[in-house]
């Protein structure tokens, strides 16, 4: 029986070699997710180590400048390691430890998930190996050194397009080589069941906090919650709590690279078609024969040809909207938020900021938008400078 379905999407499309270890992971998750000792341990780490709850910041200058809806920023960039990725890594690594695993492996695009995994591995005393596309090791050299500093081994993946999808391929291959002592800390709401569910649950703290914090500040629900989407973990984490609140518009912002009509993009909902890849049925950028397309985005973290199965279903049912945002729009938003609020957002999160800039002016002033600022932009400064023609090196 197929498990882990979201509408028609999801499932467990992995080699037989991985089925038992995936089942073992699912059992462990079901056993520990409501275990008081486990949740207390995780909550303590989330609070004392990660610095949660993250702030819900009223971006007053931005709001006034755009002249429309009231804008709040969910400051996941203030999370330890600089992004929301840590939430999931704490949960999964703690689980891995309970399962008796001594080694974790992970894929990374921008390096944020790699850094978060390496961080928790250091904290919990786990051996750690990260797979990162060679192209991305160049784009995000600082994060590579950061991971090494944290004691992780970083493997530059030189197959295929040498980006995030190839890093996932290689991490899966590595996992099939060594399952007995190794847990694969998948970094997004994708892959085979139970990963989309587990990662969503560990990230759902974002939406829960947004709801409670906004209730305290405004006494009501937001009108819009928006986030950038690659695989979709920060978006799923922000959306999940609000799925039942039908008045809340959920908007996922995809990386459109040079534009949705240009082959150099990574906008899966805009341009993808149904497929089965990386363990899941979902939408993928691919050709008529099911060959996965070499996608592109300035953002290494969104440079992925697929999207998590729950997002695919939210798109099918119309519960969430997905919009494409280009490199240029994202870079402008990166600069805008830096100047306007003194907050340098990750280039990934800048895609959500860009769409907020687009829609906020047209909304009434009594409307409230929450933008999930999934990460901080320090890692992107050199690349953005190069994009703008300034030759600085890290």
């Amino acid at each position: 029986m197929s498990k882990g379905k979201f509408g028609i999407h999801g499932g467990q499309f992995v080699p037989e070699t991985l089925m038992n270890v995936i089942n073992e992971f699912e059992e462990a998750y079901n056993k520990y997710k409501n275990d008081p000792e486990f949740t207390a341990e995780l909550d303590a780490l989330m609070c004392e180590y990660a610095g949660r709850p993250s702030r819900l910041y009223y971006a007053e200058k931005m709001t006034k400048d755009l002249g429309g809806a009231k804008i709040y920023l969910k400051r996941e960039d203030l999370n330890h390691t600089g992004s929301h990725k840590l939430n999931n890594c704490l949960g999964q690594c703690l689980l891995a430890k309970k399962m008796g695993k001594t080694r974790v492996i992970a894929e990374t695009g921008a390096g944020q998930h790699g850094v978060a995994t390496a961080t928790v591995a250091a904290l919990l005393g786990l051996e750690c190996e990260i797979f990162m596309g060679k192209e991305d090791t160049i784009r995000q050299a600082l994060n590579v050194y950061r991971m090494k500093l944290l004691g992780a081994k970083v493997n530059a993946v030189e197959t295929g397009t040498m980006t995030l999808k190839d890093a996932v391929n290689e991490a899966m291959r590595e996992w099939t080589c060594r399952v007995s002592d190794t847990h694969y800390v998948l970094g997004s709401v994708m892959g085979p069941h139970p990963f989309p569910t587990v990662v969503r649950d560990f990230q759902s703290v974002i939406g829960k906090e947004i709801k409670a914090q906004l209730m305290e500040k405004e006494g009501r629900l937001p009108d819009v919650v928006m986030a950038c989407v690659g695989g979709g973990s920060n978006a799923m984490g922000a959306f999940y709590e609000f799925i039942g609140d039908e008045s809340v518009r959920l908007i996922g912002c995809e990386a459109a690279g040079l534009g949705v009509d240009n082959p150099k993009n990574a906008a899966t909902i805009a341009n993808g078609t149904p497929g089965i890849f990386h363990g899941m049925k979902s939408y993928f950028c691919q050709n008529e024969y099911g060959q996965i397309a070499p996608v592109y985005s300035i953002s290494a973290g969104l440079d992925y040809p697929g999207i998590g199965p729950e997002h695919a279903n939210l798109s099918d049912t119309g519960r969430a909207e997905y919009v494409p945002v280009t490199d240029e729009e994202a870079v402008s938003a990166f600069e805008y938020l830096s100047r306007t609020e003194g907050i340098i957002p990750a280039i990934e999160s800048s895609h959500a900021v860009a769409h907020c800039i687009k829609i906020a002016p047209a909304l009434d002033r009594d409307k409230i938008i929450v933008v999930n600022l999934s990460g901080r932009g320090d890692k992107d400064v050199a690349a953005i400078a190069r994009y703008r023609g300034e030759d600085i090196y890290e």
Partner: protein
Amino acid sequence: MSKIKEAFGKGKAFIPFVTAGDPDLDTTARLLVAMSESGADIIEIGIPFSDPIAEGVVIQEADLRALASGTTTDKIFDMVEKIRPQIKSALAVMTYMNPIFVYGTDRFMRRCSECGISAVIVPDTPFEEKQELEPYCSKHGVELVSLIAPTSHERIKTIAKESQGFVYCVSSMGVTGVRSEITTDIGEMVELVRSVSDTPCAVGFGISTPEQAKKMAAVSDGVIVGSAIMKLVAKYGKDCIEPVCEYVKEMKSAINF
């Protein structure tokens, strides 16, 4: 009797794998005919995929070369259909779920059937997801090969009970590719299959030498070799027919000692 079962009825089966379209489809066509003449009992035709997660470097590179040469699923089917009368071996297709699903699973299995392809092997679709394939396979009379791995343990019986064609025993952890040593107790895996099913068992992943093949064949019904062949194809390109056929003959005689 199915063509696959028949292929296992003549002693231990030797099952070579080739990535279709590496270096080009014309070479693949010649290779299929020549391997059949050299004693291949079943030939696995690999439909290349951009992201073959169960493959080691040798077949990954073969897939990329094949795609770069313009190979498509349709061109592969057309080629096989054309040369099928010249091939005595049973044919199976090995590819990933996405190329099948996107082509249209029903249409894919229909084309297999029209081209005389008896079975499909889909390494990223486990037992739990076989509904994605099985109904279309049965509809068009194509057998769905089940894979079992060194980590399968208690799953082996469940999988074997519903197996068709042959059971593909994955010899080792990890991906395809040449290995110097195989440490898994294949005999035990095969015994578990045989305790619930009479579906033949063929061993693959990591086998390259006649000695390894002989050892694996002694405890199973056949041996699958892919990477060792694709290494020859990579080395000799369009001139690979002769070296591959010599290799096939050598392996075939090693397992039927």
